């Protein structure tokens, strides 16, 4: 019973407010703006700053908290995704299931489709474009925009910042377009 409860996925009205609390919590702890993509910049600054001015700053002073935070996220991903893993296929809407089935997805177990995320798929051209190309664009775009779904989508919007609203509208529009127009060509058949 308890076991079953621990493995059950959380509903939106638990998840959303907790995300909001994390953002508030970081401000309360040390006046830190909630955001994840800045950590990608700090990783570059720490390990490969090169001659690039953008990476020449005191990353320890500015970003060590953010790196501690994402190391925590990795650990939390293990706790939530492995120790407390959902034992059943995901309960997306029937309409979503139908739409993704048309794309070529048949296995709805786990956090990501097994049919898309594996070393074997990565070794194919489609898989390479999806995993390496997708990852690259995420890193490039979030740095360019100065934030991602957390920094702009939560922190910026919650602080009523216009640049964040512009960014959020832009990435939602582009994300929908990519899902409809590009994803069909990247799912292995």
């Amino acid at each position, binding site marked *: 019973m308890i076991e079953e409860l621990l493995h059950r996925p959380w509903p939106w009205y638990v998840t959303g407010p907790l995300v909001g609390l994390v953002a508030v919590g970081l401000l309360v702890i040390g006046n830190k703006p909630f955001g994840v993509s800045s950590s990608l910049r700090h990783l570059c600054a720490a390990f490969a700053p090169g001659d690039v001015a953008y990476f020449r700053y005191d990353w320890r002073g500015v970003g060590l908290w953010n790196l501690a935070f994402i190391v*925590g996220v990795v650990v939390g991903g293990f706790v939530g995704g492995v120790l407390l893993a959902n034992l059943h296929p995901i309960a997306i809407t029937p309409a979503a299931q139908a739409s993704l089935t048309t794309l070529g997805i048949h296995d709805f177990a786990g956090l990501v489709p097994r049919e898309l995320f594996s070393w074997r798929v990565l070794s194919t051209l489609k898989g390479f474009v999806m995993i390496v190309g997708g990852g690259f664009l995420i890193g490039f775009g979030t740095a360019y925009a100065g934030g991602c779904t957390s920094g702009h989508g939560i922190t910026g919007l919650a602080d009523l910042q216009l640049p964040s609203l512009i960014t959020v509208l832009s990435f939602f529009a*582009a994300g929908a377009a990519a*899902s409809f127009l590009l994803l069909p060509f990247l799912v292995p058949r």
Partner: protein
Amino acid sequence: MRVAPAAPAAPAATSPPRLLGAYFVTGVLFGIVLTKGELVSWFRIEEALRFKGPYLYLVFASALAVAAPGFALLERRRARAFTGEAISLPPKVLGRGVRYIAGGAIFGVGWGILGVCPGPLFALVGAGVGGGVMVVACLAAVAGTWTYGYLRPRLPH
């Protein structure tokens, strides 16, 4: 995790890194929320981006319903953080706005085809999905950020 506050000679740009343990623990909680709340789920993201279900939008709305009044309260009360700093969020500079439209769009395309944004990217590394293949996506994201830094002087903002 605890690291001695900034190297002696280095002038601290901001406050020295304190409370690293607290940020780590908050990160662990966030990682658990991301996975148990299925925000790391490719299925949930694509469901939202294909407009086939309200889940992600409800999460965003309810997160903002907590964060927005929380921020407003902290700023209006001129509250101080545990570190003693006055709490304030730096305003983002709009400028011509090109960076927000273009950067957002580029990120959006990556988000749409990978079905993952930066927070989940790290959480999925921890969850070990696909035999650890997310590490590659994570390194690609770091490479993307590095490339932006390199090209930055030549890009419109």
